[in-house]
């Protein structure tokens, strides 16, 4: 079970595991961002999480730290999932890239930079991916207006 993995992880990186949560049968581990590459390498090599499903950023505007980078991992052998999160503060929105661990991370990290404005150290090719080159701002941030910049707010109902 994922719990065993979490226990192993706690043993190896006792100082870096900030929080472990289970919700609807899914385990989420929050770790410090400094050690994310080492932790991911550990999870891949020791715990068999050889498949990175998804990587994304979340903006908790108004909370400290403001951002979270979320890694959804999958173990193809045991068919188990695990979620790893790292908090990223607004002043220094940088995380080390995990594209050295899984090549998959390349584009999702670019997307995270493009839409959320979290940049990745040592990333091989950190360019905007969905928005146009030279776009100003990061649209998925909560303080980015839904209508886009420099436009009258939409007067109708949205929800």
């Amino acid at each position: 079970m994922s719990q065993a993995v979490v226990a192993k992880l706690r043993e190896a990186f006792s100082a870096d595991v900030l929080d472990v949560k289970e919700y609807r049968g899914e385990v989420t581990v929050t770790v410090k961002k400094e050690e994310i590459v080492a932790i991911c390498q550990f999870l891949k090599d020791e715990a068999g999480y050889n498949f990175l499903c998804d990587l994304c950023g979340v903006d908790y505007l108004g909370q400290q730290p403001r951002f979270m980078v979320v890694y959804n991992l999958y173990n193809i052998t045991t068919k188990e999932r695990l979620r790893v999160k790292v908090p990223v503060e607004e002043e220094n929105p940088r995380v080390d890239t995990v594209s050295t661990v899984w090549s998959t991370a390349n584009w999702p990290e670019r997307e995270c930079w493009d839409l959320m404005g979290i940049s990745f150290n040592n990333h091989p090719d950190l360019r905007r991916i969905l928005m146009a080159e030279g776009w100003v701002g990061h649209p998925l941030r909560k303080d980015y207006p839904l209508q886009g910049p420099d436009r009258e707010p939409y007067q109708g109902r949205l929800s």
Partner: protein
Amino acid sequence: MAKKETMTINMGPQHPSTHGVLQLVLELDGETVVNAVPHIGFLHRGVEKLAENRSYHRALPLTDRLDYLAPMSNNLGYVLTVEKLLGITDQIPERAKVVRVMMAELTRIKSHLVWLATHALDIGAMTVFLYCFREREQIMDMYEKLSGARMTSNYFRVGGLSLDLPEGFVDDVTSFIDDMPGHLDTYEGLLTGNKIWQKRTVGVAPISAEDAIDIGLTGPALRGSGVDWDLRRDNPYSGYEDYDFEVITRDGCDTFDRYKNRLDEMRESCKIIRQAVDKLQPGPILADVPDVCLPPKKDVVNSIEGLIHQFKIITEGFKPEPGEVYQGVEAPKGELGYYMISDGSANPFRMKIRPPSFVNLQALPKMVEGKLLADVIAAIGTLDIVLGEIDR
């Protein structure tokens, strides 16, 4: 020797075989590809941002527009995620689950038909294209009968289905799956044994199992590299554990094996649909969770309570407790995942979609570098990408 000069060509975003608005910048030495850089984002509509500003029910139609060739698979992933977030997964009525499986598999056939059609057309076999679209048309008609729309069906609902099956629908499905294996044999008759088809696909766009996992390939593309993994069997959802089907795996790692895989998958889908038809029992189509599900139309027009009920759900929506879930489904193109965070309000706080095409497309440069220009076309086809879900 003189310095070798390379030529850079822009393939797309307007090009007959980039399957939409994909732009590939190719560096060519003669006809050999030295370097391939995909550029995406021409179809970016900000689906994730839009979803954050709508209630859960109203974000559902956005998912139709992701992989517009397989709208019901997208709907299925979304409603399963929201149901998991609400914790009502085990309250979904049996009939709704069976219909969901049936429609998801029909959608798989529909999506694979478009893939086969365009893939064959790209390689130059244009007759298969029209044969496939003839069969796809039947599925489109069923879609229309069921939901009123041919492409953007928006048929599933959080908690069940929007409408019950129309009269005669099951007969349509049965006659379709009776004919489908024969049609598949026709396609194979035109392609599988064809020497030119084999020359164009065997050994083309290779990727090893290790590389495929490393780069995140999923779905038929991954199973073509010999990795035996299918979410329908390994992390079953919507009752897939009760169906008897095989996961098709081949280890040729090339375009031909991926082609055979998808064809066999369509045959398996027919088997699943047949079992679903047999399982179909009369019963409710919506879960009995009044906070979430809309009341039947009959109640809304006949009683003030029903009207108020409907009004409340439409205007306010429902509010799942704070939490976060991830749900992956085996969409026709690979693992389609939704990662959803609720902050206790009526809108999703964050909805991240994991589109299979987006991750699969990353493998393209690896597959084509050092190969010929014509193989780029075959590789784009074999990855089965849809720009709607890549760009979101």
